[in-house]
Every structure is written in structure tokens, then in C-alpha cells.
């Protein structure tokens, strides 16, 4: 899952980012001003945008409105230090999906972020199932045939992403765009490397390759 944080307070953005990486298995991009944030939001397929309202260059609400004007349905979690009902209503009316007032508890931010990401994939249940594999997105634990499996971070990210879109053919570009942040260096074969690692763990037929299109987790055999 890939998250964009638009927050002018660099330290806060970095803290939230590190928390999301560690606790929600997310790739995180940070933008510290409005126009840059909007540009990033429009040019990358984020699973969630954490948006501060007070931004240099462009108001957060403005950014939100333009994002929705451009037809993007990316879930947006609004952060604001203003907690008047009017501010909250305005934020939600302009297309925000949820809001948090500063100062907030990190745990709450993480929970809301996870819920919003799931909602983006139409998965209200925090536990994703693909055949014998069960993925608890809240605790990041994976069980395979009733037994707990410990996965490295990148393998978990890939599995979670494929499970979110279980039964769909997911292209390699999609995978790279959702698993890596802007600054990560990716090699052309990283996806193959992690897919084969997962196949080794859960059996070769867990993830099927559709030649020329991508990968499918679970679902019916063609």
C-alpha cells in the first residue's frame, strides 16, 4: 500500500511516515507544500492521502477539491489543528473521507489509515482470505493452513496488495507503484523475486502468472 503525506511540518510528516511504514506496511511519500502535494497526488496511484489543511502555497481544502475535480477517488484522511465543526464539515463536504484533529494519537491515525485503505478496495473485513492463506491487516499476521507465518516486510506488502485485489489480474507496474515509494530504487525483476519467494512459502499455485498481463492471487482457475 502506498500513502502520500501532505504536511508542511516536516518532522510530523516524517514521524507519521515512519509509523505508517513500520506499523501499516506502507510505502510513504511526503510532500511539504500544496502545489507539490497536488502534483504528486495526481501523478501516482496512492491508496491513501494524509492531508494537512494549513499548507504553504495552497490550502489543503483547495487541494482536496482539485483532486476530486480531477476524478481521483483516493481516500483522504484530513489532519487539522482547527476542530470547529465548520472546519470539519467543510473538509468532509469537499471530499475528505475522515479527519483527525491535532494533536492525535498515532494508534488512532494508523487504525483510521488502515480502515480507509481497506475501504478503497471495498474490503470492510480487516482479515483477507485467499485459499488457505489468512491475512490480518490490523496486526500484520499471516496464517497459512492455521499456522502463523512470519513474512519479511516486502513479502508481506506484496501479499497484502495481491490479497486486497484477490481474483484480479494485477500488473507488474501496479505492483511496483503500490509497493514502493518515490525514492525507492527498484529493479526490473524485484516483483519476480518476491513472487517466487511467496510461491516457495505457500505453494507454487498460490500466485498464478497470466502471461503478458500480470499476477492473480486466489480466485477460480481459468
Amino acid at each position, binding site marked *: 500500500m502506498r500513502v502520500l503525506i501532505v504536511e*508542511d*511540518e*516536516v*518532522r*510530523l510528516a516524517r*514521524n*507519521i511516515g*515512519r*509509523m505508517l511504514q*513500520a*506499523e501499516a506496511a506502507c510505502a510513504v511519500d511526503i510532500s*511539504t*507544500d500544496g502545489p507539490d502535494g497536488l502534483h504528486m497526488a495526481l501523478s501516482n496511484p496512492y491508496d491513501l492521502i494524509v492531508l494537512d489543511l*494549513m*499548507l*504553504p502555497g495552497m490550502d489543503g481544502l483547495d487541494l482536496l477539491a482539485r483532486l476530486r475535480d480531477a476524478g481521483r477517488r483516493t481516500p483522504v484522511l484530513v489532519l487539522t*489543528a*482547527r*476542530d*470547529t465543526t465548520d472546519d470539519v464539515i467543510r473538509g468532509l463536504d469537499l471530499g475528505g473521507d475522515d479527519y483527525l*484533529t*491535532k*494533536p*492525535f*494519537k*498515532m*494508534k488512532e491515525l494508523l487504525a483510521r489509515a488502515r480502515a480507509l485503505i481497506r475501504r478503497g478496495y471495498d474490503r470492510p473485513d480487516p482479515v483477507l482470505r485467499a485459499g488457505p492463506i489468512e491475512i490480518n491487516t490490523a496486526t500484520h499476521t499471516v496464517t497459512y493452513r492455521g499456522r502463523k507465518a512470519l513474512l519479511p516486510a516486502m513479502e508481506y506488502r506484496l501479499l497484502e496488495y495481491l490479497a486486497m485485489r484477490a481474483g484480479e489480474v494485477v500488473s507488474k507496474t501496479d505492483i511496483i507503484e503500490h509497493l514502493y515509494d518515490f525514492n525507492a530504487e527498484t529493479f526490473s525483476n524485484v516483483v519476480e523475486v518476491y513472487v517466487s519467494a511467496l510461491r516457495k512459502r505457500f505453494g507454487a499455485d498460490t500466485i498464478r502468472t497470466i502471461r503478458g498481463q500480470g499476477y492473480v492471487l486466489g480466485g477460480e482457475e481459468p
Partner: protein
Amino acid sequence: MRPLSLKWRLSLLVILVVTVVVGAVSATAYLRIRRTYLGHIDRMLTIMGNALATKVDAARPPAALEAEARLVTQSPWRGTGTHFRVWIAGDAADLAASVPPNGKKAAFLWNLSAARRPDPGEAAFFDVQDKQKHYRLLWKRLGTARGDANIVIAHPSSYEHRRLDEVMATLLLVGGGLILATAVFGTWLVRLGIRPIRKVTDRLSRLGAEDLGDQRLADLVVSRELEPLVEAVERLLERLDAALEQQKQFASDAAHELRTPLSLARSTLELAASQPRQAADYRAAVEEVLGDLDRMDRLIAQLLTLARIDRTRGVPEPVDIRLDAALHERVAEYHACAAARGGEVTAGDLAPCVVRGNEKMLGLVFRNLLDNALTYGPAGGAVRVDLAYGPGQSCTATVRDEGGRLPPEALPHLFDRFYRVESSRSRRTGGSGLGLAIAREVVRRHGGDIWVTSSPGTQTTFHVRLPCTQDADDWAGTAQG
């Protein structure tokens, strides 16, 4: 004593006016009626007096004159009630005097008051009363060969006086009734007239703070005279609303400014506590949080300063201050601070100016300006402080740095509370957004002015104009003496 209520004042005024008018009309009417009634008698008495005067002149014996007089004073239409007396001044006996049928002389003809005596050759009319009977009396004096003759003729006027009394009674009754009616109806009418005032009052007394915003009086229909009042109140409400809105905005901004470092500190601590970490990581987190606490501390101090200034009126404990000396002190105070950043603060030309004001408050102004110049000016740049006379009876201090960073559209807002040219940059440098607002408030209290000029890329200058209490020559004189 409290002045009478408007209702009573108006009522009393109306009653007073009606009383005066009714009184004047009644008095005029009475006098005219009286003149009409008594005028008849007066004309008759004049004719009789003139007739008698022609007889007195001739040298007739008294008895003959008396007979003539009796004949003359016989009124064809008023009977014989007329009395007369004719005498020559100085003579012991009268020339003629009427004797009524009952033989009793009218005593009042012999007891005439000398004060009523007309001048020689003239005639005078007046009223006398004798035993419930009223008389109209003519006293005529004329010079004759035998001396100064007096003719007095009195005609009964009881009938006329009774009529006049009736007229008087009628007028009093009508006038009194009119005044009473005015008192009752006038008061009622006045109350009716001031009812719109009560309507407005009731409406205003029901207004609460929550009604300030939405033009609560727009639907209040009042008479034209009250429109200015209602409009004035409406404008007052608008001003109050604006002030309240400003206060709300300020509180909201203050909360926002406090929450930002708080959320920073919180996120840092939560991140540090989320997983076991190296000691160095914890130390870094603690230092970051300490920085956040410093920022909150500074902000709270500035908020308190602003609140204190807002609470006081005018300038407390004003003293004469040598502004140049005070600026020298400030420059010395910031010397080390500037050096630590690789820059410098220097005092330029400081004219010996004296201003009257609160030393602490003015000190705060220049501290804030120097803070501002050092924080936002280019790192390692020089800051220069100058002080010069003018314009007029004032002096202007300038704090100039080498940064030309201010966009023109920011200049008018620079002194607004919590205004920031570019929020991310200012936040990182730790400004509270209140320093310049405090400076402006203090300078305005001192009757001065603060503004900023900026030439892009080269320098930014803050100007503080303060009124001088002494001009240069005076001070030079004092300094020498």
C-alpha cells in the same frame, strides 16, 4: 436627581402649553366681553358728562344746576339710579348732588380716592362698589371761570357685573375642563407615541451574544424618527460582531499554534515508544521534544504578553526614555546572539531622542524587531539599527537587515496576529507569529507608527516612529546645563 421620564416630561410640556394658550384665550375673551358690556355705560356717562359740563360753566345758582343735572342724568332707558355730584375745588359746598328718592346720599361720591383723580380737563372711568351694588363712575375735571370744576357721575352696573361673573365662571369651567382633558388624553397620546421606543427597547433587551451575527434588527419596522437609532444599534452590533469574530479567530489561531508543537512532540514520543530503539534514537527524540516544549513556552509567553497589553489601557507608568541609549543597550544585548549565527548587529547613527513611554514595553518592540531580523534575515547577514529625528515632532528608529525576502503582498499583513509569510519556513525557525503584532500594539499605544519597507533581494527595513517629548535643541540645552 434622576431626570423625569420622557413620558412625563412630554406630558407636562403639553399640559403647560395648553394651559398657557387656554389662559390667554380666556383672558382675551373676558376682557373683550367686559369692554363691550361696560362700553355702553361709558358712552352714556360720556354724553351725560359733556352735557353737564356745558351747564357748569354758566353762572347759575346751585339749585338750578342741580335741577339741570338731574334732568341730564335721567337715562331714558336705565331709570333713575344715576348719582351725580358737581363741585368746585376749594368750595365748601357742592354745586349739585343727587339725592335719591329714599333721601340717602350715595356716600361713595364723597369718599373718592384722590389717586383716581384725572388731570385737569381730562376724564376717567372706574368701578366702585357700594353695599353689594356696583357702579360705573365718570370723573371729569374742567376749568371754569369760577375755578376747577369736578363732575362725577355714577351709574349702576350690577347687572353687567353679574353677567361678567357668569362669563368668567363659564370660561374657567371650559378652560379647566380643557386642561384636565389634555392631561388625561395627552399622557395617553404620549404613551402611544413613545410605544415604538419601548418596542425597540424590548427587542434590544432580548438580544444575546448569539444574535450578533445575523442582522437581528433588519425586520424591526419603526417610525422614521427611530430609524437612525436602530441603524446605530445595528452598526454597533456589527462592530461587536466583528470584534467577537476577531477574538474567536485569535483563540482558534492560538489553539492551532499550540497544537502544532504539541502534535509534533506527541508523534515523536509515540514513534520512539513504538519499538525498542538505540539510546541515540531516544536521545534524539528527547531533544526534539524539548525543542517543541521551548516553542510552546515561547508562544505562551507571547500570548500572555499580548493578553497583558490588551488588558491595560494606554501606556502604564510612562517615563522619559533616551531612545538612543535604550537602542544601544538592545544592540549590545543581541551582539552575542548575532555572533552565534555568524552575523552582526550594529548601531548606526543614533540621534539623542527622548520619548515618553513604558520602558519595558518599548524594549519589547525592539527585541521583537531584532529577533525578527536575526531569525528571518539571511544567515550571517548584518543588522543595523538607526535613529533619526522626524518627521515633525517625532523620531524614527529603523532596524535593517540584508534580506529582501518579503513579497509585496505580504507587507500589509505582516503585523497581523499569527500572520506568516510562508508558514513552513517560519515554523521551522520557531517564530510565534505574534512578535510583530505585539510590536505594533505597543507602538500604537505610544502614539506612534510601525511599518516595513522592502527592496527585493537587497534589504528589509522596519521603521518605528514615536513622538518625541523634547526636540534636539532642547535636549542639547539640557545636556549642556
